[in-house]
């Protein structure tokens, strides 16, 4: 079975494969885990010793009329109990503690790996899915680590230990109880197969229910505008009903399995009483042994029931771990250079040589591109939707590598430049100013968290936001909220430009906003943009006439190829493709 994850084929591993990989990758935690397992074993052994003490007390004390033995075995039992408690506590703490440490590291590792992947990966995968890797998937593991892991270890140890103890007490009686084992295993296997399918369906359906609710809420305005409330509710009712049925199927499995196991336990009790009772009457079995077997019986079944209870947790954890490993196995499309050439400074010359690129290599978006941008030059790339403009921007900052040809900075292939150096010299500024939650200061200092206040205010002045920032109640410490939602679109843009100015790169690649911003700030944004681009090499992906006209040269693209290059005024005069674009723009602007 193959699951497609972000374009990379990831083989869904068997449960054993996933577990052994987790063990391989736990590094120094392995030692701690072994220690924790040791403590758990000790705790289990202490628990198993309890019935032995009780048996001694009953046989040598109660039935032998010896008050001293009764008293002393009771005292011994209480001492054992205290030890049991201490050991049980240590076992829980150590096993779950190791697990949590493992998860803490896994979380960081997964996130670091995610961020190291190419931008294309983020386009292929829905944000919600990536977020769920870091939240619900890790949570599924946490649940197992906290509630399941100790159970699994203890239960397995208990079943083994109780079996051994029973054989020590009386072989024939032990065989009687163990005769139930095949039935128990058969019932568990059937249950497992059925429950696997049932829970699988429950998981699928809950996903659909939540997605439908989510959509019903986000789309409620459209639903009401087209008065489709009843239809929507009916559709949802069907999805919801399927989820109910899936749950009921799982409930049916549980409601059959657990009573069946309980009946087996009673059968065991009956067998002990019948066979054991006869032997006590024969004098071949002590009453204390019979009594101990009754205690062992419940200890034999309880762990098996516990295992069934944590089975679902375990399945979910393995599925989650498998998804996380799948993400960790995804490789980036833009690998770091093996032997990067250091580049402390740059003059900012960008060269694109015979570049060919397609998100799917079979369908090239850029068929051929040759372009040289001189240091300090401003080049605007224009063209209709789908002409490949934005792809040029992504190639220039190495969000993608070309399938053919080269993109160079100062004559060095971008693939050979150290990533940190590259990011320092070339910055992409998407004009829809994306801000992170945090303060204005955090956002402006993004590229240089150590920038001092004086320098920060200087940037604000240069970008023309110093007065506005100063007028805010919390000034530079104003929280911008999630994605900068407290600010207007124009304000966000200005802050984003300030952030770029702080980075102070030699080359700026600007992807102009397609949608309209608040007109009040439009002028301010124009001025700030001028300041930012001053003296830098700039590749501007232009959606506006004015922006393109201000460039030193314009590159007109159509269908993945350059159709015209030259200074804007010359191109307009030449009457080619750019002149035609100009005509459409002006017609639109003048209402003709």
């Amino acid at each position, binding site marked *: 079975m193959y699951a497609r994850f972000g374009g990379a084929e990831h083989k869904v591993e068997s449960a054993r494969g996933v577990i052994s990989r987790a063990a391989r990758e736990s590094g120094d935690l392995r030692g701690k885990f072994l220690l924790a397992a040791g403590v758990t074993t000790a705790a289990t052994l202490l628990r198993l010793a*309890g019935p032995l003490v*009780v048996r001694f007390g*009953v046989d040598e004390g*109660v039935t032998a009329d010896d008050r001293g033995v*009764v008293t002393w075995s009771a005292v011994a039992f209480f001492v054992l109990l205290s030890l*049991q408690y201490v050991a049980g*506590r*240590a076992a*829980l*703490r150590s096993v*779950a503690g190791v697990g*949590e440490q493992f*998860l*803490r590291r896994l979380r*960081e590792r997964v*996130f670091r790996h995610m*961020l190291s992947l190419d931008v294309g990966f*983020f386009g292929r995968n*829905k944000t919600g899915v990536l*977020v769920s890797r*870091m939240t619900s998937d890790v949570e599924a593991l946490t649940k197992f680590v*906290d509630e399941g892991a100790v159970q699994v270890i203890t239960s397995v140890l208990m079943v083994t230990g109780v079996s051994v103890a029973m054989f020590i007490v009386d072989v024939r009686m032990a065989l009687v109880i163990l005769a139930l084992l095949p039935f128990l295993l058969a019932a568990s296997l059937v249950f497992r197969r059925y429950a696997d399918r049932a829970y699988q369906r429950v998981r699928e359906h809950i996903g659909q229910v*939540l997605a439908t*609710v*989510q*959509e019903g*809420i*986000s789309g*409620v*305005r459209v639903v*009401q*505008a087209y*008065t489709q409330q009843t239809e929507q509710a009916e559709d949802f009712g069907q999805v*919801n009903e399927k989820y*109910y049925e899936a749950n*009921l199927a799982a*409930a049916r499995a*549980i409601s059959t399995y*657990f009573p069946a196991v309980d009946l087996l336990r*009673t059968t065991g009790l009956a067998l002990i*009483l019948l066979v054991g*009772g006869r032997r006590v*009457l024969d004098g071949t079995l002590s009453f204390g042994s*019979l009594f101990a077997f009754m205690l062992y019986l419940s200890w034999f079944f309880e762990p098996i029931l516990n295992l069934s209870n944590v089975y679902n947790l375990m399945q979910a954890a393995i599925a989650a771990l498998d998804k996380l490993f799948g993400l960790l196995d995804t490789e980036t499309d833009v690998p770091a250079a093996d032997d990067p050439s250091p580049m402390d400074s740059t003059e900012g010359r960008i060269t694109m040589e015979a570049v060919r690129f397609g998100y799917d290599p079979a369908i090239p978006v850029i068929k051929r591109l040759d372009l040289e941008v001189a240091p300090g030059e401003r080049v605007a790339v224009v063209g209709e*939707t789908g002409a490949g403009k934005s792809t040029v921007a992504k190639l220039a*900052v190495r*969000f993608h590598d070309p399938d053919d040809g080269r993109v160079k900075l100062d004559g060095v292939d971008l693939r050979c430049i150290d990533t940190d150096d590259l*990011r*320092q010299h070339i910055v*992409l500024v998407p004009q829809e100013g*994306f801000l*992170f939650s945090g303060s204005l200061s955090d956002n402006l200092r*993004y590229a240089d968290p150590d920038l001092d206040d004086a320098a920060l205010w200087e940037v604000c002045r240069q970008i023309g936001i110093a007065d506005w920032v100063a007028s805010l109640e919390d000034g530079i410490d104003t929280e911008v909220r999630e*994605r900068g939602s407290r600010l207007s679109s124009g304000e966000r843009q200005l802050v984003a430009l300030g952030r770029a100015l702080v980075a102070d790169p030699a080359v700026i690649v600007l992807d102009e906003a*397609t949608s*309209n911003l608040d*007109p009040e700030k439009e002028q301010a944004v124009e001025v700030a943009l001028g300041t930012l681009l001053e003296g830098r090499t700039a590749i501007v992906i232009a959606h*506006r006439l004015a922006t393109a006209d201000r460039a030193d040269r314009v590159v007109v693209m159509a269908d993945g190829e350059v159709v015209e290059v030259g200074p804007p005024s010359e191109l307009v005069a030449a009457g080619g493709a750019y002149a035609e674009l100009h005509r459409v723009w002006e017609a639109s*602007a003048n*209402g003709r």
Partner: protein
Amino acid sequence: MGDVAGPEPGAIGLGLRFIARVVRRYPRETTLSILAALVWMAMVIAGPYLTALVVDRAITEEQPDLLLPLVGLVLLAGVARALGIGGRRYFAFRLSYRAETDLRNRIFEHIQRLAFSFHDRTSTGELMARASTDLSQFRIVLAMLPITVANLALLVAVSTVLIVMDPLLGTVTALAIPALLLVARRYAGQVLSISFEVQQSLADMSTDVEEAVSGIRVVKSYGQEEQEVARVGATADRIFDRAMQLIGQRAIHVPLFEALPAIATGLVLLIGGLRVIDGVLTLGQFVAFTEYMVVLNFPLRITGFFLAELPRASAAAVRIRDLLSTAPEISDPERPEPMPKGRGRLCFEGVSFSYPDGPSVLDGFDLAMEPGKSVALVGPTGSGKSTVAYLLPRFYDPTAGSIRLDGTDIRELALEDLRSAVAVAFEEPFLFSATVRENIAFGAPDATHEQVRLAARLASADAFILDLPDGYDTTVGERGFSLSGGQRQRIALARAVLRDPRVLVLDDAMSSVDATTEQEIRESLATVMEGRTTIIIAHRPATLALADEVVFLDAGRVAAVGPHERLLAEVPRYAEVLAETVGEVV
């Protein structure tokens, strides 16, 4: 995640009443599950008693003949017990899932009916929490209800049996019951408050990751991956700390759950053993005491858990109840007028509107439109253009004034009638995770494929749709193929056109469409607008030119009316507002 509020003490009564009301709706499941639970309970009590009988009558009194029939009784009780467990579990699950499913349907239906103003002030996350975490909280308690009823009966019965069998030993061992309950409650309380903090940190984690992923281009542009890793790492540390606290609590309490019944076993050995020697207690009773302690272990734990869950569940129940009892601010009139005949005559009279605790948006807006005419609304940001579009289909009601459609006040009409007569194409269109065809036919599910294609052609969408992987059957939306803003707007436009409304409102509906395509749409729109009343909200002069007249809005009222050219020449403020947006293209 959403907002999971902590338990509110005052709400418990209210929540319990709501839970009781829901339970009463499923008498069959409730009765059967409680009955089954009581059978199970009776057998739980009978079990050790029967075992004692075997030990005393058959073994101690050495009557081998009694062994088989008595053991048969034990087995019979075991069968009844198994049936009780199965029935209890099945019907309890059924009760809880049925109630959850029905409530979720009601919540969904209700959310669909609540007006725009409600959705403006309520976040998606909050409503999601009602339909997911709150409901499952509620369900857990319902599922546990039958077993809890039986458990409480069991606890009382077993204590009575123990005390009757041997008052001294009975009292001593019965003390384990309140002790365990107390520990269980305390533990659950601790876990609750810590896991509440864990939920908060998880919500932070999800925000952190969401932000880094959505802003990945910024992160990468500035090479700040490590800064993001550090941010997430700090949140992960908080989660880790809480998790370790949780483990600490678990490590203290869970072994106690095992130790407390064991202490009772030890006491039975000590006191019971001595009393057997003294001849006060039989050996069989001694065995029964031990068995009862084992038997009680599980019910005690479950009851403790139930008691701890109850406050949280009733808080969830109160939140669900509150949502369901929120009345829609806009609904059908009691006796709706029949839809008047006409072709879309519109009349706004002294319409004023302001959002709750916001400044006034419209302030005495007057506009009369003849059927089949079109106007363009122009105005600076915040002048109330979009509000006009929202008032017409009654997404909001005006705070003063009235709107008439073909002579009838729109508040007198059934919403269904009104909204099928008025279609709005929004600036930020919402596409459902469904096929393109289903999205276009959203307001007219019975439309034929030809009608859908015609609407798409009128919106200049047909060509790009045919280029999609599966054409009209391509799934789009959040879980489907990503479309550009302009493409989404064109689908939304087709959706509005297909409705064939008397009044068509285009609320900046082509703002993301590039200039060449818009020109195409303009040409086909002329056909669409024929014979219907159209209101166009737009910035681009070429789009404005589609309308017969321009209505210039300023500060919530009509400042000027007339053809574009005349306003441009005569109203300086109009030219000014337009100039701000000229030069913006593609």
